[in-house]
């Protein structure tokens, strides 16, 4: 039996969280290889359908990261992201997924360490939860 290697997808906003992720790299912090970043301009780009698609295509965990409230490069984008996130959480639950598989974090460009902490903790949690139950369902 092969050990469970999670596939975690992270949607990082270009201006804050992606920069924070880069900083984590520049600082040579340890980040699990299970995490694949997807760069978007703003966390408000995320249609709930995109997040659900990630789970339906087998993501074991989905992380959404944006600028801290008040810092959004596009004024209010992250507020909308937060609202949509709350909605998606409910839908994820109704699909039979543990809601903890989806997380929203605010990470600024100077928070390399926070980024590393968030990813590491999230990875731990996903490993504990096990593989995405939807993967067994043939779509």
């Amino acid at each position, binding site marked *: 039996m092969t050990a469970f290697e999670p596939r975690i997808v992270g949607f990082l906003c270009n*201006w804050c969280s992606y920069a924070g992720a880069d*900083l984590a790299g*520049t600082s040579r912090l340890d980040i699990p290889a299970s995490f694949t970043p997807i760069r978007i301009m703003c966390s408000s780009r995320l249609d709930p359908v995109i997040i659900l698609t990630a789970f339906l295509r087998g993501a074991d965990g989905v992380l959404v990261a944006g600028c801290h409230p*008040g*810092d959004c490069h596009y004024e209010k984008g992250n507020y909308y992201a937060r609202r949509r996130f709350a909605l998606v959480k409910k839908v994820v639950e109704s699909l039979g997924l543990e809601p903890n598989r989806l997380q929203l974090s605010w990470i600024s*460009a100077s928070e*390399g*360490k926070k980024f590393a902490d968030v990813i590491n903790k999230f990875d731990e949690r996903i490993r504990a939860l096990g593989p995405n139950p939807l993967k067994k369902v043939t779509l």
Partner: protein
Amino acid sequence: MVIGAGIAGIEASLLLSKAGRKVYLVEKCSFVGGTVVKFENVFPNMECATCMLAPRQQDLLQDRNIELLTLAQVAQVGTSPEGFTVQICKRARYVDILACIGCGTCYEPCPVSAPNEFEMGLSQSKAISIPCVGALPNVPVIDKERCVRFAGKDCRACKDACALDAINLDQKDEMLELRVGAIIVATGFDTWNVGQIPRYGYGRHSDIYDALEFERLFASNGPTEGRIVLRSGRTPRSAALVHCVGREEKGYCSAVCCLYLLKFSHYLKSKISDVKINEFYTDFCIPGKSHQRFFERMVKGDINLIRASRLEVDDCDNGLVVRYDTGGGKRNECVVDMVILAPPMQPRRDTPQLAKILGISLDDKGFFVKGVASSVSSSRSGIYVVGCAQGPKSIEESVAEAQAAVADILSSSRSGGL
């Protein structure tokens, strides 16, 4: 030419470039961002300073019209038909800026360790280093004063560690001659060393910080990664924030201290939720439409605002004791774990030199004089002074002045004049 790559200098450069002008941005240090890049957050909305500046820094580094000259200073200025001929002394970085990819492998083997100036001495750095993680451009510099090779020893540790052969220990300082139509001085400010006023105890006691030191202490990319741990090793349970340090001696109000000390109280409470804060002020100076609301948000909860005079700080068994007068000449005291002092903003130490080179006047406080020709002119036509180089002010005022200087340049050159 823009002298100083702080927030005002960056703004002016980007705007001039947008207009199609070639800009030489001359920066004395090895990094861009000036003083604002040292802050974790800015008042009043407490947004992240790095996030705020990062897009502009990126734009700056990738802008084709802007030639950034770091480790460079103006040595001489003469006139020319188009404006000015400027001699720039560009110090050697000893690292090839094009070849270096910012991997940092060269730092570890360096045998020299000395107080990191950017981190206000709160941590050490090597003789070859970048000021802090995330500093731009992401290329280190060798500090000649500290490097043992320049003291005669045959050390090549950094050069040997570099896989790209980006380190050139024989690089020489360069002299450049540039012709420009106008000059914007955006050199910013220094803080006065308040150790000069013995009653505040700065420099005598380890847990007394000045404002910039505390900014770095709190910074998430700083020497303690943002953990508030004092030099003595303790986590403070109480703090005294002192306004107007050196104000009497200098004879002016530094405009932003009341506001940033409120920011500091928020910093403290965000990491140490039950911290007791005593804030000692003379007048609360919070002009502007949003600053009073900021004040009200910040003072909610456990902050003791004390109007005080004749303040002194001293050592005591349990920490630091602050003695002060309140109304009616009553003398009081309180004991705290840490003291943060708000020093006066003063002109950069090399301002008199620069003024002489540029041929512009200083006022009796040592700041560049504001001329009468326009809102940001200096005493000499074609040279503008913006930001804190002209006098203490907030970020938004500095940015507006930078934009105003650009207006002056773009509008006068169209009419054919300087």
